[in-house]
């Protein structure tokens, strides 16, 4: 046992995987944008990565127990900022988030809320002293989760809102949810997803189109169906071996929508082929398994819940983004963590990894 957490105890294997993924990401951002008006974007992304790494170190120094002590305060702070965003600057923030630009000086509150919900739910599940989650507990978890989900939905940002849910699901599963409750929950989710999706369509397609046109005139924003088709064409035409770095026509000629960000996997799939996609997906699988390994080795359940909260969000991002790229899921503006261009999203992932390091560093500390 050591008396002090040390940086040497960082998960260097995990960081190596992260380095590999971010490198592929930066290269693909370069490939996608170097021949366009957005040339040089890879440097900005490198800057964000630097900021992220620094943030990771800083957050790893603050004992996660200390953070969890402040969970109620953090939660209230998070909700308050979400409300502020809704009341003032609704159009600006709302619009901004929808196109998933995420960069710029305005750090997105919804990204912050992801971190807060990890800590808050970790705290809540840790307080459940048994291995069985009661219905009351579940209702409380649902309430804690759906208040911020609702607020983010009103921005409107379905993607980020949905991302909070897996934290609760994975947490509840680990906390010992009863099988019958899980079954009922699954049925409910299965019923609600299509309803929510349709409502979004009824309420906002007009608005979306306008915002897209306004902020991204060069992107030729046609229907979401067009975007998915172009993404599928990019992926499919990449074939087994890919067209080569910087040689994907769908990517280079701008047919792939936001190819440096939400659809970066489509750009990579076109240029690096099925082989490249396999490498990327296996790297993400390695990342997730390594995170789970960290959860398994956590000193206490609180640490485990934090690590698994991060795992849930990262895993969900990868699942939804990759599925969107091949047309298996609707376009929701969820970026691919560590690869997609974007300041807020990159910062979030590194802060989340900082929490993981935080837990890992302290597994031998009393």
């Amino acid at each position, binding site marked *: 046992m050591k008396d002090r957490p040390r940086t040497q105890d960082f998960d260097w294997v995990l960081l190596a995987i992260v380095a590999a993924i971010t490198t592929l990401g930066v290269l693909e951002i370069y490939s996608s944008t170097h021949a366009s008006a957005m040339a040089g974007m890879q440097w900005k992304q490198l800057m964000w990565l630097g900021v992220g790494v620094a943030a990771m170190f800083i957050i790893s120094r603050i004992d996660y*127990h200390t953070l*969890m*002590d402040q969970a109620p305060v953090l939660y209230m702070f998070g909700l308050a900022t979400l409300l502020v965003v809704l009341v003032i600057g609704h159009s600006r923030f709302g619009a901004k988030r929808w196109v998933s630009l995420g960069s710029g000086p305005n750090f997105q509150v919804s990204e912050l809320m992801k971190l807060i919900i990890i800590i808050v739910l970790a*705290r809540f599940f*840790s*307080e459940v*002293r048994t*291995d069985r989650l009661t219905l009351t507990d579940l209702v409380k978890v649902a309430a804690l989760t759906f208040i911020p989900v609702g607020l983010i939905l009103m921005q409107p940002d379905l993607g980020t809102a949905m991302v909070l849910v897996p934290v609760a699901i*994975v947490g509840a*599963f*680990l906390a*010992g949810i009863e099988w019958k409750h899980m079954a009922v929950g699954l049925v409910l989710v299965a019923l609600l997803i299509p309803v929510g999706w349709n409502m979004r369509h009824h309420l906002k397609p007009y608005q979306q189109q306008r915002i897209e*046109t306004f902020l991204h*005139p*060069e*992107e*030729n924003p*046609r*229907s979401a169906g*067009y975007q998915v088709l*172009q993404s*599928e*064409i990019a*992926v*499919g*035409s*990449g*074939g*087994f071996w890919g067209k080569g770095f910087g040689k994907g*026509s*769908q990517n280079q*000629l*701008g*047919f792939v929508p936001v190819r440096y960000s939400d659809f970066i996997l489509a750009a990579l*799939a076109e240029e690096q*082929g*099925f082989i490249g*996609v*396999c490498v990327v*997906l*296996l790297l*993400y*699988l390695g990342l*997730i*398994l390594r995170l*789970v390994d960290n*959860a*398994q080795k*956590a000193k*206490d*359940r*609180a640490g*485990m819940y934090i690590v*698994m909260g991060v*795992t849930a969000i990262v*895993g969900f991002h990868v699942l939804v983004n*990759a*599925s969107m790229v*091949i047309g*298996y899921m609707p376009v929701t503006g969820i970026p691919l963590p560590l690869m997609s261009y974007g300041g807020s999203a990159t910062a979030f992932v590194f802060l989340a990894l900082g929490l993981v390091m935080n837990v890992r560093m302290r597994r031998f500390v009393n």
Partner: protein
Amino acid sequence: MPSWSVNDQKIPQGRLALVSYVFVAIVALLMVGFWKLQVVQSGHFVDLAERNRVRSIPIIAPRGPMLDREGRVLVDSYPSFSILLMRDDLKSLEKSLPQIEDGLGIDPADLRQQLEAAKAEPKFLPVIIKPAASQADIAFVDSHRADIPVLELMMVQRRRYPHNSMLASAIGYVGEVSVQDMDDSEGQYRPGDLVGKAGLEKEYNDQLEGTDGMKRVVVNSVGKVMRTLDNVEAVPGKPVQLTIDYDLQAIAEADMVGKQGAVVAMDARTGEILAMVSRPTFDPNDFAVRVPKEEWQSLNTDKKTPLLNRAIQAQLAPGSVFKIVMATAMLESKQISENFTAYCPGYAVFYGRTFHCWKPQGHGVVGLHAAIVDSCDVFFYNVGKLLGIDTISHYASGLGFGKRTGIDLPGEEPGLMPSEEWVERVYHHKWYAGETISVAVGQGAVTVTPIQLARMAAAVASGGTLVQPHLLKNFVNSKVDHFPISDNTVEQVTQGLYGVVNEGGGTGYHLRLQNIDLCGKSGTAQLMSYDAAKRLGTKTMDGWFVGFAPRRNPEIVIAAIVQDTMEHGGEAAGPVVRDIVKAYFDKKNARTQQQATTNSPAQPGSTQPLVATVGAKRP
């Protein structure tokens, strides 16, 4: 230490492992998804990506110009842009319509009607919503490429007819290729292509039409051209030089302003058409862009049929012009003595029916010459009766009646020369002998086109050589028919025709020209019987005049008709013939003089004749 951080619970390793398995399964499923797209369906998507990337832009070949016989431009082409509306993405199309209507100033109802009409056509065929786009229209399309991706510009070559309706009936017009033609052409035509739809534009379409080039370019997602893959230049259409003489055409056009009828002037030796007018007519410039529906309807339903080329399509009773045929038949058949005379009291009775002469007071005793000069009907009634319909028909057919002349224009009509055989075949009864009397003065069943009359007159005057009329300067394989006529006949008939113009009392005496042997024959076809005309108190007639000059070896022959006139043929149609003949010889003399001066020692350098004297090099 708060209660939640008491470390008294084990980590649920089993459940964590289960979560790992779920993620392994998810990644495996994603890989299957990518496998399906990238390996199983890869070919399909490669194809789609290629179609995204490469756009074929046709380079429209300009249509060849039409020139007159001296190289003056009658028709040419100029480049212009059409705006296309892509219909493959209906959703974004619907959304953009108001903006398009606003930006291009198109009537919303028209546009929707156009789209509705195009619904039956395949979706990949765009609709031309604005032919002949203005600079502002082009700028609008260019500046909205991102937000209105359904608009596209296409460069086309538009037809220009600088002299508007001049020669319009012969020139015809061009129009956008029809779906039918496109299907028949096996890919030769694309939507928006211009093809000749009528007249010379149609007849010589293959020559006038160039071969379109094709540029394959790489475009980005907003349609901006990034680079060119390959480029096949367009081959412009070849010019078509016509036999038309602009100067004579202009005179013919001017004389026919406000009239209904036709004029055709032909080189009597070669069949080259020097001028061709049909009235009323149209302005082919109106067809060079889309024709508004109402205008089409008015052109097509107009009772005066402006789209008809009367010079070759109007089948009319020749009236007294037919007497040239009768005189020829009389002399050639030798069934009647050359010195045959008839007494004309102003009318004659045949088969119990009274036939009038145009001159109520009568001509007295007339022979062939006088009968031609003053156009005595009674004389020719008698000739007709003596010859019989089959002899008349034999000579008329030999001189080209009842069959097409073979002019290089689409839609020529053959006219009709009746015979006993024809009546039996068509009406299943015997020929009524009384009909022969009417036919003898160019009435009854016989109908001709103006071009047939001109060709007939030239044939009689030249001893039976029937040229093939044509408008193309380098017309090859000209088919010449021979229907030999003896010199004596030629002499007597042309003497009569000379007398018509040059002897006092001739029906064309007012048309005589100094130093030019103009010969001719007037004709006045009744549109209704004398009785009906008398009853109605009106007398609308078709006035003909057919003339040629000089008398021996004529160079120019002209047939003119003025329809729905109150005047006789000599007065109604004679002046245009006279004016063209005069202009022809004035021009010829001027050229001869000019040649004489340029060939004089004063200017030894200029040995090149400007234009060969018409026919000088031809026998």
